[in-house]
């Protein structure tokens, strides 16, 4: 009678364990230390982006412009260094750009009350277009000698752990502390749970919403630094890729409801692990890019359907108008 209700994160974690075990058993070359490190390294950027997205989604928003924040400010660093500016100055300018970008997003959503989907869709296009049209000379912004030392962020290691993994872990801890243990975090959950209620309670909703998008842009920019340092360049065409869907996949798959107020850093980690294992396994099996998309799509559908079977929505939640 009293069947235990599994939450989506438990279901996804179970799928991850099964998948991981299956790959380890049947896929030669999967369960090696080297491959594990590669796996984690490859998903670190995705995971950091997932954290930025989670911060916004928990507050009942969405940030489609994350990839622009990932590509353009770090690309600017490479370009400026190439043009002869010093590295610290370039980084400062890039961070200022990301900050300004987050402020614009936040202002549009909180004060001009543009729905987050449209606001960030537009600003993302704008920033990416700006970068490609006037900031960068080539689609792939190249590494230059002035960047020396910066590659440690993507290629170095501390005690044998690659730095991207450390970067991911660090952002995890910062975001987790922010969400769980600070007043800001409590406000974010409150706004995501019930925006009208949060307002009436006297929570400064609008500054908090702006802060969410500023943090998302800054974290996105940080992910871009890690990416650029790993591949020694910034391929700005990444904006045209399906990366943003992978980010949303991580967040939704991990169990952070798009209707806000639910989930946390743990969900992002679980979502990232599953996606990372899948991508890694499929790469070892040499499945084509379109085949990978097909499988990702099916996994997302399966997770969503499983969730709606295990946790049927009652009239109470149905009235909340999930996105």
């Amino acid at each position: 009678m009293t069947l235990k209700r599994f939450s989506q994160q438990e279901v996804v974690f179970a799928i991850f364990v099964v998948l991981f075990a299956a790959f380890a058993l049947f896929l030669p070359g999967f369960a090696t230390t080297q491959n594990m490190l590669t796996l984690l390294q490859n998903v670190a950027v995705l995971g950091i982006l997932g954290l930025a997205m989670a911060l916004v989604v928990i507050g009942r928003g969405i940030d489609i412009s994350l990839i622009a924040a990932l590509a353009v400010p770090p690309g600017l660093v490479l370009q400026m260094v190439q043009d002869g500016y010093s590295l610290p100055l370039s980084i400062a300018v890039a961070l200022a750009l990301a900050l300004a970008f987050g402020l614009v997003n936040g202002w549009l959503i909180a004060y001009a009350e543009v729905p987050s989907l449209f606001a960030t869709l537009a600003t993302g296009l704008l920033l990416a277009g700006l970068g490609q049209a006037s900031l960068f000379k080539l689609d792939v912004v190249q590494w230059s000698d002035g960047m020396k030392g910066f590659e440690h962020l993507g290629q170095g290691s501390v005690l044998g752990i690659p730095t991207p993994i450390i970067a991911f872990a660090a952002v995890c801890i910062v975001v987790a502390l922010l969400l769980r243990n600070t007043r800001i975090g409590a406000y974010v959950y409150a706004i995501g749970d019930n925006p009208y209620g949060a307002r009436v309670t006297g929570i400064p909703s609008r500054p908090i919403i702006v802060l969410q998008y500023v943090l998302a842009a800054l974290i996105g920019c940080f992910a871009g630094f890690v990416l650029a340092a790993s591949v020694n360049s910034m391929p700005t065409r990444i904006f045209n890729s399906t990366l943003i869907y992978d980010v949303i996949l991580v967040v939704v798959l991990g169990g952070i409801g798009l209707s806000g107020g639910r989930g946390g850093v743990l969900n992002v980690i679980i979502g990232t692990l599953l996606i990372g294992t899948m991508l890694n396994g499929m790469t070892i099996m040499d499945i084509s890019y379109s085949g990978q998309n097909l499988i990702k799509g099916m996994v997302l559908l399966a997770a969503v359907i499983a969730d709606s079977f295990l946790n049927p929505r009652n009239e109470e939640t149905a009235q909340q108008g999930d996105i």
Partner: protein
Amino acid sequence: MTDNVIEFRKATKLYAGVPAINEVDFQLRRGEIHALVGENGAGKSTLSKALAGVVTLTSGQLLINGAEVAPKTPLEARHLGVAMVFQENSLVPTMTVAQNLFLGQERFYNRLRGIYIAAQQFLQSLNFDVPPTATVSLLGAAKKQMVEIARAVLHQAQVIIFDEPTASLTPEEKAYFFDLVRDLKKRGVSIIFISHALEEALLLADRITVLRDGKHVVTDDVANFDRARIVQAMVGRDLSNTLYGKRKTEVRRAGERILSVQNLKMAPMVKNNSLSVFAGQITGVFGLVGAGRTETFKIVAGVLKRDFFHGGEILLNGKPVRYRVPAPAVQAGVAYVTEDRKVEGFFETMSIARNIYLGLLSKFPGGRFLLSSNEAQKTGDDWISRLKVRAISPKAKVVELSGGNQQKVVIAKSLTQEPDLIIFDEPTRGVDVGAIVEIHELINRLADEGKAVVVISSYLPEILALSDRILVSRQGKVVEEFSALDATEEKIMYAAIH
């Protein structure tokens, strides 16, 4: 046996193992109006939802016209001749009346002119004065209800369930609605009428069934009931004297003038409204739906904005204020306890303690950058015991509580902010009888402590039982003021209507 259109036999519905209704027997006779009354959570809605196919019974039988059935969707129930008019309007607001009537029955080629003509004829046959080409969102509450009823009749329902049909209606609209229901009865339709308003049940019904805690208590002809007996059956104890019956014999004296509103305007709801609120007493604000009471006080609390030009003045403690959002109003000591706690009140995914703690955080953020689970726990426990919130633990989620306990949590959230001016908007709407008494005691205590308290209510006995001073609002402004000592229901209603 065939006398009964509907019969429930030992109907039980469990939600996560907890019975919402427990072995309920219920019969609805053909062509009768049967009122279903009980406290919140007594199982009225669950019983009718089982009938309307919204939920399915865990065990027990449902017989329609003597045949056992188990409708799984509202559509199946509709085919069995059962229609439900929901508390929340189930019409599509952007469509016209005619489109709503024929929703789900359109032909493949949906000729609008055709359905307008058909709808016109149909509405005329029912004597309903609703234009079929009007967009539903522009209609008043009563007209929307007419469309819902018309739709039920159009679907040839033998049984129509009304869930709190009169909650949003003005008295004239109510009278009209009652005529409609009686007319339906003449057509041989059987009606289940769920209501909190006992007077209405007594006025309208042929028989009354009282439910309590998911169990059937009593069913009898209306002639054998009076108010006291229903209340007695509902709560199992005699509350009728302590609740609304008692009249004030003395009133609190007005303290300082805390709030003064002058010529406040917000088109189209508030028109040149002027009023004052004093410390140390309860100011009751009565008015019919659309009188602009809620809007006026929402402007005071910063939830709504007044007109930009010629918007009038609000003086708080003598100083002019203009809040664009609620946060600065909260800082200034104004608390607004909403009439719609689900939309504007509590945070449903969070625990009771967290809900209350958020109120504290947003008023006194200083030095609370890091959350303290200790403080949250203590604040939660403290208010739970002060307001007698009944829950398994402070960690229980608010959404799992009954209406009365939810309301207490919302009130506690505001009281942690130590407000000087507290605005209660319909403080006991959807609250069970026991909690009403406790919330009324609390409101009285706040006034005794010297706070300025405003109670907005559409329920006259509540206004009379609580207020020291009564403001009557009509068409966007306060038109009369009474002392509680010389106010009567007749006087207040007269001021509110004319």
